[in-house]
Structures are given as C-alpha cells and as structure tokens.
C-alpha cells in the first residue's frame, strides 16, 4: 500500500459514519462506502496533494449516494406505483436492532431533509469549516449556511421539546 491507500484506510471509520448519516440501512451504508472507495481509487490522479483527502472522499461518497438515490427512483418508476410504495417502505424501516440503537439525536437528524442533514453533519459532526463543507456539497457557502441554519433551528425546537 502507498500513502494514499493508508490514508483511505485511516478514513474508513469516518466514511462509514458519514454513510450511516445518509442511509439508515447499515448494509446499504457500507455498500455506499465501498462504491466511494472504488471511485476514489480510480480517480486518485484528480486529488491534489496538500488538500484535504477527507473532504475529497466525502464529496465522492455524497455523489455516489445521489447517483444511487436517482437509480433507485428510476427503478421504482419502471417497476410501477405499487412496488414503489413497497420499496420506499423497505428503505424507511430499518431492522429492529438498528432502530433500538439510534439515539434521540440520531433520530432527530434522520428526520431532517437530506440537504439540511448533510450540512449539519459536515459542520457539527465532522467539524469542517463552512468553506470545506460547501466544497463537499459543491455549493456556495451561502447555500451551505442557509441549510445549516434551517436544520439546526428544527433540531433546537425538537430538543427543547424533549428537555434537550
């Protein structure tokens, strides 16, 4: 292995955590990490040394997730409305263990619209700067901060409700 590969290995726990914030299903989350790793290794030449590898791979993982979601909705459209409803239900109900282990905060985050959840995740969980987080989602800083503010406002209201 070379330095790039070693750094990817070191990032694995954080990549798995990010994937878990996107996909509620644990196996799907790890599939997503695998796709991101494969793409990162294929495209390693486009990584500029001296910049942050974590942000770079996070962006790849997020794009893989968006591709996956698109493919899923395409499949659902082709399969027809009845099966679509079933597929959506499947995706939304993780198995019993997974539900039990989620904390109140994780459930509150999972209930946020995905764009807001990702903004909150990158800044508050990963500790990225606004500029780095904006790069990951490939959007202007203003877009990032407005998602961050909306997501956080919702979280604050919910947590106050449960004595947060």
């Amino acid at each position: 292995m070379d330095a790039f590969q070693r750094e990817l290995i070191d990032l694995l726990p954080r990549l798995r955590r990010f994937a878990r914030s996107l996909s509620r299903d644990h196996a799907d989350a790890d599939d997503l990490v695998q796709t991101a790793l494969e793409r990162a290794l294929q495209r390693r030449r486009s990584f500029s040394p001296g910049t942050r590898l974590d942000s770079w791979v996070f962006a790849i993982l997020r794009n893989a997730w968006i591709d996956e979601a698109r493919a899923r909705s395409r499949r659902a459209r082709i399969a027809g409305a009845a099966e679509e409803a079933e597929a959506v239900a499947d995706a939304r109900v993780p198995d019993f263990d997974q539900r039990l282990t989620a904390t109140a905060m994780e459930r509150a985050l999972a209930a946020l619209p995905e764009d807001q959840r990702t903004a909150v995740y990158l800044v508050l969980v990963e500790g990225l700067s606004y500029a780095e987080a904006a790069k990951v989602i490939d959007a202007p800083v203003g877009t990032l901060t407005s998602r961050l503010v909306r997501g956080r406002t919702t979280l604050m209201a919910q947590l106050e409700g449960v004595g947060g």
Partner: protein
Amino acid sequence: MIDDETLMAYVDGELDAGRSRELEQALAQSPQLAARLAAHRAVRKRVAGAWSSVLVEPVPRRLMTVVEGAKSNERPEVVDLSAVRRMRRQATAKPAPGSAGLLAAACLAAGLVIGFSGAILGPAPSVVTRGGALVAEDGLARALENQLVADQSRTQAIRIGFTIRADDGRYCRTFLDRRARLAGLACRTGNRWTVPLAAAVGGAEHAGAYRVAADEIPPPVLAAAQAMTSAPALDGPREAAARELGWR
C-alpha cells in the same frame, strides 16, 4: 438585533474578529442573548456525538480489501545508515564556530536519518541519535519491547515484522512505523534498541530522492535481518519467552 445565524457562526468559530467582539459586547448586556447562545452551544455539542458509535465498530473486512487490493503507486528504496554515520562523523569532526554551529552540524547529520524530510516523520521522530548510535524511542521503543507478532492488530501504528536471534546473541526485530513512515531493523543492545538499518517508507510526495513506499517492510531490511542469523525467525512461544527474559 443579533440573529440565530450569527450565534451559530459564533459557536462554530466562523465569525470574524470584529463581529465576534460586537457579539461579546451585546452578550454582556443581555442575559436572554446569553441563554440563546448557551442553547446553540448545547445543540452543537449534542449533534457532535451523533453516530459516534460507528467510529468504534470494527471496519468490515471487505472495505479494507477494496483499498489494500488496489495497485500501489510507490516503490520501496532503502537508506543505508552506515553511510549516514560516516557523514555524521565528517560533520562533527569539522570544527564549528560556537555551539550553534555544532548544533547545526548535529542536526544536519541527524536530520538525514531521522527526518529524510521533516514532513515524513512529523513532530515525533521514533529514531534518534544517542551517544553516536541510532536508538528507537517512545512508541517505537515500547512496541519493540512489548509487542508480540502474534498479538498485533492491523490498525496499530507500529507493526513488528519478525524477531530473530542474531548470531552475535542479540535479539533483533524488523519493524514498520506507519506514523513515522519508517521501516527498519532494531537490535536489543544493552538496555535499549539500536537501529542498524532503517528506510523511509511511503510519503513519496515529500521524500524527494528517497522516493519509497509500501506498507510492507522493504526487502533490503528483510535481507539485512536474515544476514544476521543462521537460524529461522522466532515462533510465537519463543518470542514470548524472549520478551519474558527482557530480550537478553
């Protein structure tokens, strides 16, 4: 009026100095504002721990395999420390004006070995010069002293390759220090581990002429270890016994 976005930016460390000062002045005069700030801090703290349990889960083998199975971009190369020692002798033999000069000469010589480039080894060099010999220190010294090959996990920063009993009676161990990006051979000499041979591994982007890599111990280090003994490497029980006896 200070809005929530400003308070959030403040707790995220994203507010510039001027606006931070304004906010702090306003805070001193308004308990309500201070309470809102405290609420934002609390949310930040609670969100930060979300999904933290994932970080301590074992990483599935298949994900490691995706990375490890990919083609490596680097080739190993080795630095012969006896050449470095000769250079050190020359450097210190030269009369240097004043202690600053001596220090510079020593750093120059040591730097060749310890940090082929400062960037490789980072803030904590694992091999230093002591009384003219290269000696393992800190984490590396502890690993050499305590870590058994059989007990290692693949995530450890320092990995021991194998242990031999050299023909001169010393125990020697090959090692790979991922954090320091250094691989080499260390021999228990008296009460410390001296390092007769080491090579920078990985970090080709920094290493210049010492362009090297790999997560494995480079072949020349293995060859040097094998040349020191006519016996095979110690097996698990023998290695454990040698540690029990303090590698003597």
